[in-house]
């Protein structure tokens, strides 16, 4: 089905109100998740199973923080103050996934963030590569180019642990916990970030289609790694009770205070450079 795009939006002002709000919410959700995900990657720079994996975590942490910074900056056009977004919000205003509330305590938990959550964010970004919202076009390809390596890292480790009895069991357990929140993150079938975003050509897929794309991306990896995860078969099992549509997550919970202070950079605030 091809669609003729009639409108190109050069600034948020050009967008109809509901579309503008939905887009700002989506960009903020992506930015917050990437900011906190970067922190979770960063926590594994020391202590990953191999030296190379620790270095990879360092690189991925840097990427996520770069992406978050770019995304926060785009929200300036929506009359948000990026400094406030980055450094002055309380934990319950962060739109991070519940998977990021606490540090990944074991390596398979980090891999669940790496392979599952990170790629869910990428699927959402990818849906904007031909967006009618022009300012985002100058950013998406760079983000996705860097994300390719994150996916390959997660994939490589899934295969590696899949070959080990104990590793496979731990990985299955970690992935099983993460799949539901990732599938739900795209939003309810009837809403997501708003049907308006699709109709306005800002994104090219609704929540169900994004879920399908994400599954299409991760399912072959899970199969390759020999993981058995019935949770990925269809979306019938999605549970929406207690769903918070604004935060795109189960309503309860938030970042712990220590992580929040680090994410916001509280201690070194006076030395900020930009």
């Amino acid at each position, binding site marked *: 089905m091809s669609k003729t795009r009639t409108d190109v939006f050069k600034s948020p002002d050009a967008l109809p109100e509901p579309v503008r709000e939905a887009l700002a919410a989506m960009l903020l959700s992506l930015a917050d998740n990437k900011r906190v995900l970067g922190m979770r990657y960063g926590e594994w720079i020391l202590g990953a199973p191999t030296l190379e994996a620790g270095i990879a975590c360092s690189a991925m942490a*840097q990427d996520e923080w*770069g992406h978050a910074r770019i995304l926060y900056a785009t929200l300036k056009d929506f009359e948000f103050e990026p400094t406030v977004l980055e450094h002055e919000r309380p934990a319950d205003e962060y739109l991070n996934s519940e998977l990021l509330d606490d540090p990944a305590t074991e390596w398979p938990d980090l891999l669940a963030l790496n392979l599952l959550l990170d790629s869910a964010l990428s699927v959402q970004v990818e849906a904007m590569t031909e967006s009618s919202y022009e300012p985002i076009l100058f950013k998406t390809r760079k983000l996705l180019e860097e994300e390719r390596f994150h996916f390959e890292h997660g994939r490589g480790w899934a295969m590696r642990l899949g070959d080990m009895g104990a590793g496979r069991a731990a990985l299955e357990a970690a992935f099983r916990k993460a799949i539901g929140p990732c599938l739900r993150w795209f939003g309810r079938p009837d809403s997501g970030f708003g049907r308006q975003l699709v109709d306005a050509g800002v994104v090219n897929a609704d929540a169900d289609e994004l879920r399908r794309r994400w599954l299409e991306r991760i399912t072959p990896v899970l199969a390759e790694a020999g993981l058995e995860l019935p949770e990925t078969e269809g979306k019938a099992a999605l549970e929406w009770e207690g769903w918070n549509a604004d935060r795109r997550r189960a309503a309860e919970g938030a970042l712990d205070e220590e992580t929040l202070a680090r994410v916001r950079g509280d201690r070194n605030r006076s*030395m900020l450079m930009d």
Partner: protein
Amino acid sequence: MTKLVQLERRSRADVGYESEIERGMDFSAVFAETIGQNPDFALEVPEWEGPPADLREAAWRALHEVADPEFPISLPDLGLVYEVEAVDTTVRVTITFTASACPCVEFIKWDIRERLLEEPSIEEVVIEVTWDPPWTTSRITERGRQALRKAGVSI
């Protein structure tokens, strides 16, 4: 034909830049002790024929004397400069960075601005950042590749 230009790290902050960390700090001294005075890190720039035809070309030539903060290679040779436009005495430079979280963003912007403002005909410098098309190593020029190899960077 090329000639060697010794790098001089440019220091001052750009106009309006006011951060706690930068105030009172002399970056040029820091860099002089690291790469600025190291003859191994001289920057190779093209030997241009004749004077520049216009302001845009003058800016383009000048940018060849702005080095990447990490490697002895100019920003155009690294493939970071996407567009140079000139209107009256204003030069607008569109650049990208190698990584979205490049830690040298501010240094690079300062260096561009400082060098361009040394040109008598340039009064204002506007720097735009874009991420599209994404930078890849394929954007490095042949001269840049040779410079990197000389510095021991495999490419």
